[in-house]
């Protein structure tokens, strides 16, 4: 435990919850993600599920992708949104990244990733509907653990969605957050689009 506390104190994520480390016996540390955060350290045991059809799930034994495989040694632009098939997500957020994919590739980005608290089968059907699977990699954070680790979870029960996430985007190089944009409200679409993050790369 002591070494974890030292790591938290030296990381530039000053909003980390030291109290939870002192009280809890859990190894999971929740740290509010910020520029400089190491995503892999913030979410060490977390995996995401690549959007897939059920058959693909069966043949891969329902395999999951650990966060470190997604981010380590790669330049990634990742954006998270409240829910597949919902308004802003479908009509503005995903299209914004889909139409700028060439610009991202030109800047050396290895993957543009869309993540939401949905199961990977819904993500897959939605990605097909938006015809966005060639450009963007879709992942499901079905139990919200990825977003919870980064303190980007949000309760959207009032919108009948249950626990979901903020609307956000980040530019991450070798696991370190270089740029982070989080909307004030999940229904906003002001800072988390492709144009904003392209300027930050």
């Amino acid at each position: 435990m002591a070494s974890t506390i030292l790591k938290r104190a030296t990381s530039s994520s000053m909003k980390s919850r030291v109290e939870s480390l002192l009280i809890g016996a859990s190894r999971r540390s929740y740290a509010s993600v910020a520029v400089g955060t190491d995503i892999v350290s913030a979410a060490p045991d977390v995996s995401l599920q690549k959007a897939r059809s059920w058959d693909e799930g069966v043949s891969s034994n329902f395999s999951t992708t650990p966060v470190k495989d997604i981010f380590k040694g790669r330049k990634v632009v990742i954006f998270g949104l409240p829910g597949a098939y919902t308004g802003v997500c479908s009509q503005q957020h995903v299209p914004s990244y889909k139409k700028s994919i060439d610009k991202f590739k030109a800047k050396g980005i290895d993957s543009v990733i869309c993540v939401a608290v949905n199961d990977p089968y819904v993500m897959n059907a939605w990605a097909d509907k938006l015809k966005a699977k060639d450009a963007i990699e879709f992942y499901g954070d079905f139990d919200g653990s990825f977003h919870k680790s980064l303190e980007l979870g949000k309760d959207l029960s009032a919108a009948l969605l249950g626990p979901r996430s903020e609307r956000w985007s980040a530019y991450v190089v070798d696991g370190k957050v270089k740029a982070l944009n989080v909307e004030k409200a999940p229904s906003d679409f002001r800072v988390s689009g492709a144009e904003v993050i392209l300027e930050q790369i």
Partner: protein
Amino acid sequence: MAPIAVGDVLPDGTLSCFDAEDKLQQVSVHSLAAGKKVIIFGVPGAFTPTCSLKHVPGYIEKAAELKSKGVDEIICISVNDPFVMKAWAKTYPENKDVKFLADGSANYTHALGLELDLSEKGLGTRSRRFALLVEDLKVKAANVESGGEFTVSSADDILKAL
């Protein structure tokens, strides 16, 4: 909660859906079922194969026959949010009778005692596959699959109970 069984009173609960004007609505189960003959069938997940390719189509095909036997409502429920249920329902443009209702928080599925943990398949808490025949809130038939099968909960199976 023990799984719902023949002779039980159907519990009340709230499900959600988008109405004909595309507005989000919360619906009370009792308001749909009181004084009526209804079929409620549950599926583990929208956009998954057995649910999409066999279970739902069976009820859409047999809807007319079920209605001719006095069934007032045919309701499909799943632990999915109403946006996903709406999108899934749209993949069945020929459907006129089956209502797709969302039990996003799994509260109603829990009230029926029919929840199932499918976390290792990336689905989380879902519903068992089942079909209920309910007359004026009394359960007349409760066909619940024990695992991933599809042997007792189809439209053909529930037709036998009518």
